[in-house]
Structures are given as structure tokens and as C-alpha cells.
């Protein structure tokens, strides 16, 4: 329990990640009902360690999830390691990179800097929640069309930030776009294409996509 998400993933992770991806791709919410053994064991350890679990209900992508959390669990940890919503990425875990950006009551925030217990009662939207059924949402579609990524690690955070930007400012200027994604670092340097994708997404949204 004391290892970071990345440390644990490097130890046990790829198979679990593949599992989650396969589980999560069609119906992410199923993950909570089909928690794999490793995760279930961790939950038991957490409970035994301090008797400090807090019952909570998290509203994620329009679906209610009842679960017990340790107070120290971040929303990022719960999304990925408890609910299998692997679209939200873990990188710095210090509010310095933006990969874990989610919407909380419509506002972009870092899931790594939010305790899960504090997100109770809020409407949480992850990149998975921006799908239109099985189709990509307009921001996701625009990122594909404009080739707005290279390695892709920052992409889901970028997409969520752009969604927040366009909800508030449907036709942003280039300065507003730069500001809107300024909390998301792209180490590949795909910024120019990201800016074009935001403009494209604004068009797609305007067109009712």
C-alpha cells in the first residue's frame, strides 16, 4: 500500500492494466463488480491496517459507485486502481503535469490532488465520460483528426481540459486556448497540433457533434 501507483504497476502492472483496459473499454462501470484478486486483496489489507475506511458514493460519468475508501486515497488512485477507469493517467502525482485532469462539477481539476473522500457528492467526469456512446466525443474526434499527440500519455488530460475550456468558452481565441491547456504538460511537444485540435473541436461542437 505504501508504493506509488507507478511502482506497483511496474511490479505487477502490465497484466492488470491490460485486464482493466479490456474490462473498461466497453463498460467501464463493470470493473467495480469484477475486481481482480490483486485489487481485492489490497482493499482487505487497507481495511485491516487502520480500520479507517470511509464509506462513500462517487458519481462518475453519470453512474453511482458505492465503495469504502481510505482517507488518504486520491481520486486518481480510486479511478484507476479501484474502479478500473484507466483513461485518467498517473504521472507526477503532485499537481505539476495535468495528466490526471478530470471534471469535478464541470471544472477541470487534478485528480491526484483531490482526496476521493472529498469528491463525494460531486459530479465527476473522466475522459471515458466524454464518449458519445461508442462514438468519440467532439474533442476526442478533433484530437484524432488533427494528430494532436505523439506518445499519447498526456492526451486524456488534454482532452478533459479542452472540454472544460469549450464548455465555458465555446469559441476560444488562440490566447484562451493556450491558457486553457496551460495546466497540461506535453513532453513530446505536440502543442501546435493540440491548439489546432481545440479549434477543430470548437467547430465540431458548433456543428452539433
Amino acid at each position: 500500500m505504501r508504493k506509488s501507483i507507478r511502482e506497483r504497476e511496474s511490479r505487477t502492472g502490465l497484466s492488470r492494466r491490460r485486464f482493466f483496459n479490456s474490462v473498461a473499454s466497453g463498460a467501464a462501470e463493470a470493473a467495480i463488480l469484477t475486481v481482480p484478486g490483486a485489487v481485492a486483496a489490497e482493499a482487505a489489507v487497507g481495511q485491516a491496517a487502520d480500520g479507517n475506511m470511509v464509506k462513500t458514493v462517487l458519481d462518475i460519468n453519470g453512474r453511482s459507485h458505492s465503495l469504502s475508501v481510505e482517507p488518504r486515497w486520491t481520486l486518481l488512485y480510486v479511478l484507476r486502481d479501484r474502479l478500473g477507469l484507466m483513461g485518467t493517467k498517473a504521472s507526477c502525482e503532485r499537481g505539476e503535469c495535468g495528466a490526471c485532469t478530470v471534471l469535478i462539477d464541470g471544472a477541470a481539476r487534478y485528480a491526484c490532488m483531490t482526496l476521493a473522500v472529498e469528491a463525494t457528492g460531486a459530479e465527476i467526469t473522466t475522459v471515458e465520460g466524454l464518449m458519445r456512446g461508442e462514438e468519440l466525443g467532439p474533442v476526442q474526434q478533433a484530437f484524432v483528426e488533427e494528430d494532436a499527440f505523439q506518445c499519447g500519455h498526456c492526451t486524456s488530460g488534454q482532452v478533459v481540459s479542452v472540454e472544460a475550456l469549450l464548455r465555458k468558452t465555446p469559441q476560444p481565441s488562440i490566447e484562451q486556448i493556450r491558457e486553457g491547456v496551460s495546466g497540461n504538460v506535453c513532453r513530446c511537444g505536440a502543442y501546435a497540433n493540440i491548439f489546432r485540435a481545440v479549434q477543430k473541436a470548437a467547430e465540431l461542437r458548433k456543428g452539433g457533434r
Partner: protein
Amino acid sequence: MLSQFSYQRAASIKEAAEAASRPDVRILAGGTDLLGCLRNQVLQANRLVSLNGLSALKGIRQGPGGGLRLGALTTLTEIAEHRQILDSYSVLAQAAASVGSPQLRNQGTLGGNLCQRPRCWYFRGDFKCRRKGGDTCFAEGGDSQLHCIFGGASCYMVHPSDTAPALVALDAKVSITGRRGTRLVPLSSFFVLPADSLVKETVLQPGEIVTEILLDPPQPGARSAYRKVRERGAFDFALAGAAIVVAMAEGKVRTARVVLSGVAPVPWRSTDAEKTIIGKPLDAAVAVAAAAAAVKGASPLADNGYKVPLVRGILEETLTALAA
């Protein structure tokens, strides 16, 4: 994973103040500073007391005579976008808009921005410096590019807040509640220099909580601005900055407050710069003289001498812009 702690959602300010008077308890507001400190093990906590159920601490209310009362839990985004703050207290709107990133401003609170811990890389890193109970300031013989040029003694941190210098320039007051009641402190007396304490950055006593920030009504003829220079265009702390509030009357500066950010362990008020501009028309010559006055007495460390001309440039540019 963070170390274990228990969690308490305070039902009243009194309950929070009582809980927070214990040394192993930390107050949680936006969490953008606290969770980073816990993750880097700069701070320890056995219990977090959340203020986020306290609606009395949220939002912006009208104060007496046209002033404003800013709840400590008001987010930086709310401050940056509030119509009346944009119109009448531009320096504060600009400062709040310059903090971190959109995500951090959506989450970070005004009270938390004033109470955040130093960003010194030794303090945040694995160094037992004087501010963490050690006997060394590692910046003295180490890398000091981001450290202070004013007010250092035994510790050379800079205060990381952007809203603090703006609020000092506006002569704001902060309302503080503890177990023994509530007190009102001018923000200019809220921050503590290393010469007075090496372990805390504010006058807050154990269990005391910032609940509200009070702004006087805007002065007639007031103009204000916050200028921040960073290594990159966004998502960074100030290398140096200036919060300036002037009130003009008949073409001359009637009152002035000049407060520097990123250069001292507290928001650094330059009364020398203020004296240089009060009673004068705001023009280029006065701006140059004020900028020169502001950096008198600066004592850079090995790597941060660049901050002296940077502060001069910031003040010349910002005062000139305010003259227009």
C-alpha cells in the same frame, strides 16, 4: 501513496479550530499545497480536518460601504473572474489569474494561497533545513537562483503567493478564528520574516484558521496592476513580480502601495518606491526613480543577482503602464 491519516469533515469553524490545535492535525481546504507537502513528506499528519463542508467560508459577499468580504474557501478562479474584483481591484484579479494553472485555480482557495508553505527546493526536497528543524540553510552555499534578495536571514525562501502581495497592496485585512475567538489582522502584519520565526511563515497560532479576507471600498481614482515574471508563460511561480495600487488626484499620485513578490520571505513592501511616486505625476521619469529606489538595499545570493534588474524592469514597465 500518502501515509495514513484519518479524516474529519468539520461541522463548524469552532470544531475545526479545536481539532487543528493539535500538532499532528492539518487543515485541508483545496489541498493543492497540503497534499504535495504530504506526498513529499515535507509535512506529516495523523489527521486532516476538512473545511469544505463549511459554506460560511465560501464565496464573495458585499462588505460595509462598498468593500468586499472574501471567504477563505473562495477559489482563485472565482476571484479572478468576479466582476467587481475585475473592475475595482484589478491587482487582485490579475494576481489570482496568474496562479498555477486552470486546474489549480479551480481547486486552490484564497485562504490556502495565503497559508501555503515555501517552495524552496531544499525545503521541498530531502534536506533537513532550518525551517524543518535542521541547522543549515542549503541555499547559502548551494543553488540560489530562486531565492530572496530582501529580508533573508538564516533562511532565504521567497514567499510563493501571488495574491498575498496584491492583498497587501490593497491594505486588506484577514479575519482569523481560533479556540479563543476571532481577531482581525492587517495582511501587512500577517506574514513573518525568518528573523522572527524560522518555522512558520504567518502569525497563525496552533488551531487558528483564516476565515475571511476583507477589502476596503476602492479609493477614488484608484488604479492597480499585478505583473508577474516566470521562467515560462504559465503554470509557474514568480521569479519576481509587483503588485501596485495608486490613487490619483488632479494628475498626481495621492497614495501608493508597491509590494514585490518572488523576492523576499514575505510580500515585500517598498516604502522607498512609494515615497518616490507620492505627490508626483505618474510618468516615465518617476517610474525609473521608483524602480531604482525599490532595489536599494537588495542583497542577492550567489545565483540570483538577476532579480535586481528584473525588479527594476518590472516596476518601470508596470508604473508606466498604470500612467497610461
